[in-house]
């Protein structure tokens, strides 16, 4: 067995706090469905897209790119030693995407027509959004199927004690899943490449409504690269946190090696972004001092710091620096996406800042992720067993 359930208590301070946040969110969502979007959000006709879309969907899906980023290294670059990172990353991705999808359903005003995005008769093929919506729907399903082996493993074990038809059924399911795994994994790398870049293309119709420091024809490349950076970032963050919180063997060496892919993606992002600004002659926008420029500089600083921090080998292998670097990458990526979808967008004369209730719903979504992750790794075989992690570490040496 490569992975095993962590076990331990389900009721802890973290899980109880998360459950309370989730309950508050449930209540607010109920109000939103009864009284309309305006009852809970500050959305208006100048800012029709707010926090729920920008954070929960656009940033959230990139936070959910851990599975995609690790799969690229493990399968496309054939680096088997990173395999222990795959299953926890897929779990986090499944949450990121599923909750992104749920928050879109809460955010769209005419939710009873939501099925139109998977019904071909309604497709408008010039719309970037239909591509994103379809692609995200399919990918979320793929993530569930990719995580399914962990659930089925548990079911096989459980039915094994009882024997009979049920056991035969679960083992058959396990075999089928194993057989289609190759296709699922390949699709699981193709789809995020498509929709993460399209999330950038989606902003191009906004023209000058999006600040020129963000509005560029290379948006699809920038969005794809931030998805990768954030994917590696979230895997590093998750692994450093898990080994700390659950007192597990640190995976710092394997993470140190993984971080070079993250650094490559970050450097590519910065190179494309700055050469595009230079090529389009937009650098002069940086000299006007106002809030947006600080946001722009903050994004770039948050991407530059991890490169400097992790450049020397001894720091790259240290969990503390890995944690700081991962936090920087994630915050930088989230800020970039919030800027592009919300903060750097604007119509003259309109203002938007998320309401308290709007923020509470987003916090509730994050709480669902925390709660779900803790419960699932305790119950299902997700995290690599300690012996296995050691072997993987040795293999890389």
């Amino acid at each position: 067995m490569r992975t095993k359930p962590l076990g331990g208590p389900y009721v802890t301070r973290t899980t109880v706090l998360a459950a309370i946040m989730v309950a508050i969110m449930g209540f607010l969502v109920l109000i939103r469905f009864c009284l309309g979007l305006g009852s809970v959000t500050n959305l208006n006709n100048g800012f029709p897209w707010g926090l729920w879309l920008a954070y929960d969907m656009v940033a959230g899906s990139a936070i959910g790119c851990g599975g995609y980023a690790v799969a690229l290294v493990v399968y496309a670059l054939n680096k088997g030693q990173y395999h222990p990172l795959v299953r926890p990353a897929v779990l986090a991705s499944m949450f990121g995407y599923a909750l992104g999808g749920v928050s879109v359903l809460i955010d769209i005003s005419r939710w009873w027509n939501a099925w139109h995005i998977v019904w071909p008769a309604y497709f408008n093929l010039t719309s970037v959004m239909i591509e994103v919506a379809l692609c995200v729907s399919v990918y979320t399903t793929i993530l569930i199927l990719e995580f399914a082996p962990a659930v089925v493993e548990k079911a096989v074990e459980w039915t094994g004690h009882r024997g009979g038809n049920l056991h035969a059924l679960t083992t058959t399911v396990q075999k089928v899943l194993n057989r289609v795994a190759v296709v699922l994994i390949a699709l699981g790398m193709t789809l995020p490449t498509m929709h993460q870049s399209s999330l950038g293309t989606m902003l191009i119709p906004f023209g000058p409504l999006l600040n020129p420091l963000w509005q560029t024809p290379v948006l699809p490349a920038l969005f794809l690269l931030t998805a990768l950076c954030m994917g590696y970032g979230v895997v590093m963050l998750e692994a450093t946190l898990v080994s700390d919180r659950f007192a597990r063997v640190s995976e710092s060496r394997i993470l140190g090696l993984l971080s070079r892919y993250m650094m490559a993606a970050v450097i590519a992002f910065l190179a494309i972004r700055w050469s595009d600004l230079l090529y389009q002659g937009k650098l002069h926008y940086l000299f006007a001092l106002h809030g947006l420029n600080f946001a722009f500089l903050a994004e770039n600083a948050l991407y530059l710091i991890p490169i400097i921090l992790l450049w020397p080998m001894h720091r790259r292998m240290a969990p503390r620096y890995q944690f700081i670097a991962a936090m920087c990458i994630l915050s930088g990526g989230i800020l970039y996406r919030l800027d592009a979808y919300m903060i750097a967008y604007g119509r003259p004369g309109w203002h938007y800042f998320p309401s308290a209730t709007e923020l509470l719903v987003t916090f509730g979504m994050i709480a669902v992720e925390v709660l779900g992750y803790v419960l699932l790794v305790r119950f299902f075989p997700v995290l690599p067993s300690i012996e296995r992690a050691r072997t993987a570490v040795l293999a890389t040496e």
Partner: protein
Amino acid sequence: MALTRRSFLSGVALGGSACAASIAAKAEVREEKTLPPKALGLLFDSTLCVGCKACVVACREANNTHPEFNTEDKLWDTPLDLDADTLTVIKAYRDGTGVTKDQEKDGYAFVKKSCLHCIDPSCVSVCPVKAMTKNAETGIVSYNPSNCIGCRYCVAACPFGVPRFEYDKTFARLRKCELCKPRLAKGKIPACAEVCPTGATLFGPVTVLRAEAGRRHKLVPGERAFFPRKTADSTDVHEKPAPHYVAETYGLTEVGGTQMQLLAGVAFEKLGMPALPKKSFVSTSETIQRTLYKGMMAPAALFACLLFLVHRSANHAEHKDEHEEEE
């Protein structure tokens, strides 16, 4: 190890060449949109508008919208902007003492806001579910609530800020001017043009309206001139000294042109009409999408080489497992 490197290199070579071939194979430029054959529209002449707001009231009646109160006594219908309950609105520019009409300095001017019915509408391009459509004959941009999922991409993308969503309703919908489609079907003209007392708002085929705008540009300021009411070819005309127009007609080139045309005595930017390039923004996004997704070639190629690589690496892992078990 040699196997790993070889499979990796061959995979990269295969994937790289496939993707490069499909993407570098020339951008699929989306063709420029042209005026539909029987395009209908409005001509708004700011110099003729007296700010009576008869059009706003008539529009309410035609579209069943409700007065909006923005003063404390709640006795005036005072819409501040376009809204889900206000599909057209008259706004005013004012500078300094605000004495002289249609003068930029120390003057004032009126402008009518409503859907411009773009030739290459952003809302139609971005709508994921064909809730926004442009009629192939008349070019009227309409909204179909039964298709709409309420994503508000059209609201976010319109360069003019025209489509407006209802945020305070359980079963919300979008509202925008549809050029009084139901009235046209009954042989009537749009309500705003019907009631305009000075002919500031005219209805008609876009080609006729553009010709009328051209005629007005050629008038000598201060000389006797005639202005029709309701439609450009109407016999109901009134006489007035020709005003001084700014050089351009708004709506001829903006984001590929619009079916509503505007004439004014002050710069359009002062009237809140944004300066926009000739090329529509959606033609850029559509070109990018078409190039990347032409016949789904690039995604299919990417999928194929990833499938190959995953297969290779799965085989490799199996061999390694067997090897480990032997040990």
